[in-house]
C-alpha cells in the first residue's frame, strides 16, 4: 500500500448547479486562496472544480483524495479546519462527515453510502471525478480512446456495434439508437447532420444538464463517432439557454477538442471533417420533440410537423439527420470502447444498459442516480433514496415528466425499464422520478401537468391546443371544489381524442398524467368531486387546517414557521389556527413533529 500521508492531496469541490446554489463556488475560492498562502503548496494539495456528484441534497460536497473522504454541507467557514486537520494534519473533521440517519454512524467515504453503492455509473462515469473544463482530465480516463478505436472500424461495424448493444434512446420514446443510425446510413443523400438534443424540458429531470456541465467531452466524442460512421460533417448541440454552466462548459470543450484536432477540418490528419455548433434553445418544451427542434435550429417557430418521414430520412433542411439525446450520446463512447457485449450484459431483456434517474420530491436523498435497467422502484426510492422525508407514507412516484404517469405504492416492486413503465400507464421519458407522499394531491398533480402543457403546447393542432385547454378547465374546477358528476368520464373521453388525433408526441402523451391518476387514484378524484374534500390538504378551497388538542404539545414550532402569523398559543399549551388568516400553505403540518395538524374539509362548501 502506498503511503497516503506523503501524497499530494486533491481537493475536489463539486460545482454542479445544486452545489453552486448552496455556495460551493465560494468554498472552492476559499480553498484556492487559503492553500495559496501555504508554503510549498504544490507538494501539499491541488484543487479541482468537478461536475455534479448527484448528491445535491448534501451539497456543497468536498472530496479529498487519495484519502477518499467526503465532506457534506461544507461552508466557507469550514475551510480552515479542513486544511488544518485533513490536508496538513491527515485527520478527519468528524462533524462534516455524513451521518447515517439509521445507524447514526459517521461515514467517511461516499463510496460506503447506500446512495452510491447501489449505483452503476456508465453515462455519469466521469462526472464528479474530472474537471469538466479539462480535456486532459477526460483523456486521462480513456477519453477519446473510443473514437480512436472507431477509426479502425468500418461504418457498418460501428452501426452494428450500436445495434448489438441494444441501446435505446434515453430522451423519451426509447427508439433503438442503432436503427436510427442504420436508417440514416442507408439514405442515398450523403449530406447528413448529427444533432444532440439537450433541450431538457421535463420538469423534475436534470441528468442532461449534469452531463453537459460535468462531462461535455463525452457528448462530443459520442457525436464524433456517429459523424465518422455516417460521414456527416456538421453537428449541432441544442441546449437550453437557461443552462448557463452547460453552455459555458460545452463551448470550452468544443474549443479544446478543436485544438486537439478532434473537431474541425481533417481530424487527426484524416480525410474527415466534423464541426459542432452550439444552438441555444429559446425556452420551449415542445422543442424537445425532434421535428420542432429541427424547425427551431432552422430559425423557425418550434412547431413540429407530422413525422411520416423520420428525421433519419428527411431531417434538418430536408437532409438525413440523426438526433439523439445527451444521455444517449454519453453511452456511445462506452459501447464502442468496451464493446457492445459488455454493455448488453447490463439491464433487462429489451432495455439494455443503465439509466440515469433524477430522484427528487419527498425523498430523503435527492439527486441523480444511475442504475441498471430493471432496478425496482423500491430499491431506488428506499435503498438509494433512503425513504420518504419526515417518515411519511409513500404515495406515488411520477415518471416520465408531462408525458408520463403516476405509479402507486402497489407497484413499488416494478422493475424499471421502457416496457414495464409503458405497461403501467407511464413512460421512461428522460428519467425524472418525482416521489410523492400523502401530502401530495394526485388531482392537483394532474392539473399541474396539464397546466404546464397548456403553456407549452405549440398550439398548432386542434386536439392538443383545445383538448388540453378543456381538460385543464375540468381539472381546475375539480381542484377548486366545482367538480361535477360525470367529469371523470368527460376527461377520459377527451383524453382519447387528444391521444389519437394530436400531431406530435407532446399532444399524444399529454393525457397520461390524467389517465394514470384516474386509474390508480380514482377515489381521491371522487373525494374532490363528491365530498368536496382534498385528503392531502393541498387544494386550498377544499382544505381547512386545525390542531388536534390531544396531540399538540405546545412546542411552538408551527407558530414559528407560520408565514401568515395566524397560529396562537402559549408554550406548552395547545395551539390554535385562525382560519381567517390561514393561507393554507401547510407549513404547520409539514413542520409538526407530533402529527397534531389535521386536514379537514373547508366549512361552507
Amino acid at each position, binding site marked *: 500500500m502506498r503511503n497516503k500521508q506523503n501524497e499530494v492531496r486533491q481537493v475536489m469541490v463539486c460545482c454542479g448547479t445544486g452545489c453552486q446554489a448552496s455556495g460551493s463556488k465560494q468554498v472552492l475560492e476559499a480553498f484556492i486562496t487559503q492553500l495559496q498562502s501555504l508554503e510549498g503548496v504544490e507538494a501539499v494539495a491541488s484543487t479541482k472544480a468537478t461536475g455534479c456528484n448527484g448528491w445535491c441534497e448534501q451539497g456543497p460536497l468536498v472530496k479529498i483524495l487519495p484519502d477518499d473522504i467526503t465532506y457534506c454541507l461544507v461552508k466557507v467557514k469550514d475551510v480552515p479546519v479542513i486544511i488544518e486537520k485533513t490536508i496538513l494534519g491527515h485527520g478527519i473533521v468528524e462533524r462534516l462527515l455524513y451521518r447515517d440517519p439509521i445507524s447514526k454512524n459517521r461515514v467517511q467515504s461516499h463510496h460506503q453510502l447506500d446512495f452510491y453503492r447501489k449505483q452503476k455509473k456508465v453515462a455519469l462515469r466521469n462526472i464528479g471525478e474530472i474537471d469538466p473544463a479539462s480535456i486532459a482530465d477526460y483523456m486521462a480516463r480513456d477519453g477519446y480512446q473510443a473514437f480512436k478505436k472507431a477509426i479502425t472500424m468500418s461504418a457498418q461495424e460501428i452501426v452494428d456495434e450500436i445495434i448489438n448493444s441494444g441501446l435505446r434512446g434515453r430522451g423519451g420514446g426509447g427508439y433503438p439508437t442503432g436503427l436510427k443510425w442504420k436508417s440514416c446510413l442507408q439514405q442515398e443523400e450523403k449530406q447528413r447532420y448529427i444533432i444532440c438534443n439537450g433541450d431538457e424540458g421535463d420538469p423534475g429531470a436534470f441528468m442532461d444538464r449534469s452531463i453537459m456541465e460535468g462531462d461535455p467531452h463525452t457528448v462530443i466524442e459520442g457525436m464524433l463517432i456517429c459523424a465518422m460512421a455516417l460521414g456527416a460533417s456538421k453537428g449541432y448541440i441544442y441546449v437550453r439557454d437557461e443552462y448557463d454552466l452547460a453552455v459555458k462548459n460545452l463551448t470550452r470543450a468544443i474549443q479544446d477538442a478543436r485544438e486537439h484536432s478532434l473537431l474541425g477540418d481533417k481530424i487527426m490528419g484524416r480525410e474527415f471533417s466534423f464541426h459542432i455548433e452550439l444552438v441555444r434553445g429559446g425556452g420551449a418544451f415542445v422543442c424537445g420533440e425532434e421535428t420542432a427542434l429541427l424547425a427551431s435550429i432552422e430559425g423557425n417557430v418550434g412547431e413540429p410537423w*407530422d413525422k411520416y418521414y423520420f428525421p433519419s430520412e428527411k431531417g434538418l433542411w430536408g437532409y438525413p439527420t440523426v438526433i439523439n439525446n445527451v444521455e444517449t450520446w454519453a453511452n456511445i463512447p462506452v459501447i464502442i470502447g468496451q464493446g457492445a457485449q459488455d454493455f448488453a450484459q447490463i439491464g433487462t431483456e429489451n432495455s439494455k444498459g443503465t439509466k440515469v434517474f433524477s430522484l427528487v420530491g419527498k425523498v430523503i436523498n435527492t439527486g441523480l442516480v444511475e442504475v441498471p435497467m430493471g432496478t425496482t422502484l423500491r430499491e431506488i426510492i428506499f435503498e438509494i433514496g433512503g425513504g420518504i422525508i419526515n417518515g411519511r407514507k409513500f404515495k406515488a412516484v411520477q415518471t416520465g415528466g408531462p408525458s408520463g404517469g403516476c405509479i402507486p405504492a402497489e407497484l413499488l416492486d416494478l422493475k424499471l425499464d421502457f416496457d414495464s413503465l409503458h405497461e403501467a400507464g407511464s413512460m421512461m421519458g428522460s428519467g425524472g422520478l418525482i416521489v410523492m407522499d400523502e401530502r401530495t394531491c394526485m388531482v392537483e398533480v394532474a392539473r399541474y401537468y396539464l397546466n404546464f402543457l397548456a403553456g407549452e403546447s405549440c*398550439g398548432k*393542432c*386542434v386536439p392538443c391546443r*383545445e*383538448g388540453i385547454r378543456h381538460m385543464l378547465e*375540468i381539472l381546475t374546477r375539480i381542484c377548486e371544489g366545482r367538480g361535477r358528476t360525470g367529469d371523470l368520464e368527460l376527461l377520459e373521453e377527451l383524453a382519447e*381524442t387528444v391521444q389519437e388525433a394530436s*400531431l406530435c408526441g407532446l399532444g399524444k402523451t399529454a393525457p397520461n398524467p390524467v389517465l394514470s391518476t384516474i386509474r390508480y387514484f380514482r377515489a381521491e378524484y371522487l373525494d374532490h368531486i363528491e365530498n368536496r374534500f382534498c385528503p392531502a390538504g393541498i387544494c386550498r378551497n377544499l382544505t381547512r387546517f386545525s390542531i388536534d388538542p390531544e396531540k399538540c404539545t405546545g412546542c411552538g414550532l408551527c407558530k414559528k414557521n407560520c408565514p401568515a402569523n395566524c397560529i396562537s398559543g402559549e408554550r406548552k399549551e395547545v395551539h390554535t389556527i385562525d382560519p381567517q388568516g390561514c393561507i393554507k400553505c401547510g407549513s404547520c403540518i409539514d413542520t409538526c413533529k407530533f402529527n397534531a395538524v389535521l386536514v379537514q374539509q373547508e366549512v361552507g362548501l
Partner: protein
Amino acid sequence: MIIIIDNQEVQVSYGDTILDAAQRAKIHIPTLCHHQAFAGQGRCRLCLVEVTEQGRKRIVASCTYPITREITVCTSTPRIEKMRKNLVMFLYKQAPASKLLQSMYRDYECQDNSLPENAGEKCMLCNLCVLACEEMGSSAISLIMRGTEKKVATPYNEASLDCLGCGACAAICPTQAIELTERDGYRTIWNKEFKLVNCQNCGQPYATQEQLAYIESRGPDNEMLHCCLSCRQKMTAQKIKIFT
C-alpha cells in the same frame, strides 16, 4: 401505383398525399385548414383517416401523409367519426361565432357539454390567412404566441408597414374571421386604412394603391392593371372575339 380508398381503387403517384388522391377520386374527406393552393398543414386534424399498411393500422392526417407504398385507406370508421365529432366540438368552442362551425357543430350532432366557449370568437387558427398573405408577398400577419394563447396578428397589433390591404387573408378565411370594411373610397383591415383606386373602365373602387404599386414593382406595366377584375374579364373576352 394503385391504392385502395374506401374499397375503391385509386391511381396515385409516389409522394401524393392521401387527401390529394381522395379528392381526385371524388372521395370526400372533411377538412378545415386545407386549401388546394397550399401544402397540407395538419392543423385541424379533421382529415384523419385509418391507414392499413402491411397489416398494421394507424391513424394519420390525410393532408400530410405521403403515399410511398401500396396502402388501404378507410376515411370513416366509428373511431374516426367519434374523433371528428370531438374535434368539431373543440373547434366550435374555440370559435363559436363562426357560422361555419355552428353548422358543423349541428351536423356532427355534438352534444352540449359543460366546457367553456370563447364568446364572440370567429378565428379557428387554421393559418390559411397567413399562408395567403405570404403568397401575396407581404407577410404582414403571422401566428403569434403559442399554445392556448396563439392567435393571428400583425406585430404589436399595430397597422403593419408590410400590409398592402389586398384582402387575400379575408378572402381565404373559411370562417369570415377577418374584418374588412370599405367605405367612402377607403378600405380598413388589420387596423390600417387604405385608399382605394377606381377602375379606369367602370369607375368602381377595386384595389388599394399599395397593392397596385406592389404589382407594378414586380413586373412590366400591364395596361389591364388599371381595371377591376370584371372589366378585365370583359376586355379579354372582347379581345378573343376580335381575334376569332
